[in-house]
């Protein structure tokens, strides 16, 4: 910008100088031309003045012989010619008005002289004519002589007038010559000036040219370097914004324009704060960038605001410099959104690494462990610092063969990937199945730099799969067993083989029937448990009084107990023991507990049944003095098809599902089920249901039953 002003000044001065030269030269030329014209005029005048001499010189002054007739005639002719020439020259003189020469007196004197000459000449001619006529008339000599005398006198006077006229002309000539000389001098001076002008003009032109040349060279250099600089400034990847001391924007480069989406025109003059998100504006203070110790960048981070209002994470480096004594603050802006985003991505990746439930192992290309995550520690029991630097093969359980690992490495080498099930060993020595996924990490040129192993412990999954398989196998076995008996007994009966022995026939029929019943029970129980577990059974909930329900159930099972030589004794409880439940289901639970107790009671055993309050619940207990539950089996009691002594089951005819079903029912009713057992002494199975209290509901006008659980809920 400063450069440009200098340019303009140089051009202006040069222009003025040239204009002055022109004016000066023009004036000079004009005066020279005037001088020239005047000089021409004066020269013409001088010629014309000289021409005045000629008629007079040519006019032969009449002598005595003028008086001769012939002579008079000649003189008359000469006089006429003289007069004519004089007047012509005289009138020419009048036309030289441009010559500023005052010849006024000279004209008069000359004219007077010319007139006198003419007058006297005419008188001479008259006298000559008179003398002639006198001579012709033979007048006396005296008279002729008088006329001759007078003529001579007149001629003398005419000579004088001649002389006077010639002197006047000579004076005029002198004046004109002087004027010519003056003009000549002036002209010479003019030409001198002109030469000077030309020299000066040439010199100054040359100088100007040189100057201009130099200026233009400089200008071009400046322009070139400015273009160069602009190109650099516009193409740097950082945004550059210059502001004044108050933060008003003075310039910005293209990157900055692109960053904010504004064009320069729009933001120049606005405060830099307008490019910052409102909540960050107070953070921006242009004074912060002032430095006493010379330019030094101060870096701060802002959230910028694009023209569409969107956020722009930016890093701002501000430096105050001084240009021609004026402070300018240069802001270098970097769009750190991508950096922030990648930092966030990294954070996220790190968080995933830390928090995922899958164990992750990262090794270098030589398979030395670089990093493991907390899930790895949770699965294997090895802390990161115990394994870093080691080869993961220390995890091997020895269960997989050499071939297995060879195949794994072949796959990793060929495809960069392997996945599959593998059994490894935990720190505590336990072998566990895991799903392992190994990937080679490659750099840009395809070289393996790392391996990442992602693993999850599938021991639980395996266990549950195993349980499912076992359940299916068990169900299948449980169903096939009675079927085998039915099929076999019917087959034997059908063949007639048993016909000879009625005892055997009867036994076969009993077997077929018993197993049919068992099959039916099994199918019922399996369906029940399946429905209970999938909650497909709808419970008919209604208030039930255990004081009625329990004795009824006991009564219903008394006959069955008798078959085993067992007696069920109902112990006294209150009259009012209300619970909310499904009557049939509760009877099913009680029957299960009773039949278990019966089956496990010794002959002549007594089973005690009671109910009573227990901590907000009604507890129903069934106590026997059978073999009890061995400690090892206590965790299995409520599992499906679980029976402490399997061989017993056949004898007892149970399905192994009774307690599972009972537990499912009690759970559904919001109750609890459990047992206490002293093997060989007594075993007590119980279930509990929330105590229900009776309330009168005014608006319904009917009994409404509220469970204690509902009552104990905090009032709203």
């Amino acid at each position, binding site marked *: 910008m400063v450069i440009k002003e200098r340019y303009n000044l140089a051009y202006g001065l040069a222009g003025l100088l040239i204009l002055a030269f022109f004016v000066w030269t023009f004036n000079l030329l004009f005066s020279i031309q005037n001088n020239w014209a005047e000089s021409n005029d004066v020269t013409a005048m001088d010629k014309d003045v000289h021409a005045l001499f000629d008629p007079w010189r040519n006019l032969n002054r009449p002598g005595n012989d003028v008086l001769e007739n012939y002579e008079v005639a000649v003189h008359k002719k000469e006089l006429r010619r003289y007069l004519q020439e004089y007047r012509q020259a005289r009138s020419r003189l009048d036309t030289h008005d441009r010559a500023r020469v005052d010849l006024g007196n000279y004209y008069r004197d000359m004219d007077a002289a010319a007139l006198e000459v003419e007058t006297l000449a005419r008188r001479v001619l008259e006298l000559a004519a008179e003398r002639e006529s006198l001579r012709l008339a033979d007048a006396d000599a005296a008279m002729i002589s008088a006329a001759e005398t007078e003529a001579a006198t007149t001629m003398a006077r005419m000579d004088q007038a001649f002389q006077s006229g010639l002197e006047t002309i000579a004076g005029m000539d002198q004046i004109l010559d002087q004027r010519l000389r003056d003009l000549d001098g002036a002209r010479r001076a003019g030409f001198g000036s002109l030469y000077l002008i030309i020299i000066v003009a040439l010199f100054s032109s040359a100088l100007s040219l040189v100057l201009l040349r130099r200026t233009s060279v400089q200008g071009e250099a400046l322009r070139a370097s400015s273009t160069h600089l602009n190109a650099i400034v516009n193409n740097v990847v950082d945004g550059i914004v210059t502001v004044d001391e108050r933060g008003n924007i003075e310039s910005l480069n293209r990157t900055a324009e692109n960053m904010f989406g504004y064009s320069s025109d729009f933001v120049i003059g606005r405060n830099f704060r307008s490019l910052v998100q409102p909540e960050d504006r107070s953070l921006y203070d242009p004074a912060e960038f002032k430095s006493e110790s010379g330019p030094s960048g101060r870096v701060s981070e802002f959230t910028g605001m694009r023209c569409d209002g969107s956020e722009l994470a930016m890093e701002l480096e501000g430096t105050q410099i001084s240009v021609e004594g004026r402070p300018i603050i240069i802001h270098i802006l970097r769009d750190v959104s991508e950096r922030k985003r990648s930092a966030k991505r990294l954070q996220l990746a790190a968080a995933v690494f830390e928090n995922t439930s899958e164990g992750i192992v990262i090794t270098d290309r030589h398979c030395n462990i670089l990093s493991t995550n907390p899930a790895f520690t949770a699965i294997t029991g090895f802390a990161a610092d115990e394994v870093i630097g080691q080869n993961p093969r220390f995890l091997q359980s020895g269960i997989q063969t050499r071939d297995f690992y060879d195949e794994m490495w072949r796959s990793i080498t060929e495809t960069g990937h392997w996945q599959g099930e593998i059994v490894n060993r935990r720190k505590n020595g336990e072998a566990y199945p895991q799903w392992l996924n190994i990937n080679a990490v490659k750099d840009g040129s395809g070289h393996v730099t790392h391996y990442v192993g992602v693993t999850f412990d599938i021991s639980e999954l395996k266990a549950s799969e195993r349980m499912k398989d076992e359940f299916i*196998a068990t169900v*299948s*076995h449980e169903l*096939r*067993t*009675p*079927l*085998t*008996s*039915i*099929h*076999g*007994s019917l*087959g*034997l009966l*059908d*063949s007639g*083989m*048993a016909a000879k022995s009625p005892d*055997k026939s009867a*036994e*076969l029929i009993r*077997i077929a029937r*018993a*197993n049919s019943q068992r099959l039916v029970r099994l199918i019922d129980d399996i369906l029940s448990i399946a429905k209970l577990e999938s909650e497909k059974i709808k419970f008919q909930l209604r208030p039930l009084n255990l004081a009625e329900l329990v004795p009824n159930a006991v009564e219903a099972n008394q006959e069955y107990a008798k078959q085993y030589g067992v007696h069920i004794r109902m112990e006294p409880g209150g009259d009012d023991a209300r619970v909310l439940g499904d009557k049939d289901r509760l009877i099913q639970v009680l029957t299960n507990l009773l039949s278990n107790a019966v089956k496990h009671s010794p002959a002549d055993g007594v089973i005690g049944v009671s109910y009573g309050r227990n901590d907000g619940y009604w507890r129903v207990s069934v106590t026997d003095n059978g073999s009890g539950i061995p400690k090892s089996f206590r965790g299995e009691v409520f599992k499906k098809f679980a*029976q402490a*002594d*399997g*061989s017993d*089951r*056949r*004898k007892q005819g149970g399905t192994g599902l009774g307690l599972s079903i009972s537990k499912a029912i009690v759970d559904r009713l919001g109750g609890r089920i459990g047992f206490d057992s002293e093997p060989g002494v007594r075993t007590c199975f119980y279930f509990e249901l929330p105590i229900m209290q009776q309330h009168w509901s005014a608006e319904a006008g009917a009994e409404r039953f509220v469970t204690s659980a509902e009552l104990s809920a905090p009032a709203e």
Partner: protein
Amino acid sequence: MGRDTLHRILYVEDDADIRKIVSMSLEMVGDYTVASCGSCAEALQAVDDFDPELLLLDVMMPDVDGPATLRELRKRKSAADAPAVFITAKVQSADMAQYRRLGVFDVIVKPFDAMALPDRIGQIWQQYLSGEYDHAG
């Protein structure tokens, strides 16, 4: 006759009803002599006196299952060489592979045809014999 005819079968089955039916079938239809045992323990008690020619074992039994019972019986001289046949509903491929590893000679699938069972045992015995001759020859 003699060696060619099968007489004594040691049979282990935990389910009493099936035990009865199989015993009846083998004794009445097949005219075999059957030692019926409800468990491994019973079998071990009976085996030496009985000196079985063929072992017929259920697989899914509580406490000691068929394979374990077989291993136990094999320890006894009296049952060390007798061909073992499993009678079971557990006949998935993994199970069959396991039986093969145990050296079980054949498997009879439950539910079985009680009338055809003696014949089936007879065929198995003949197969066993021919195999033994092949081996011997």
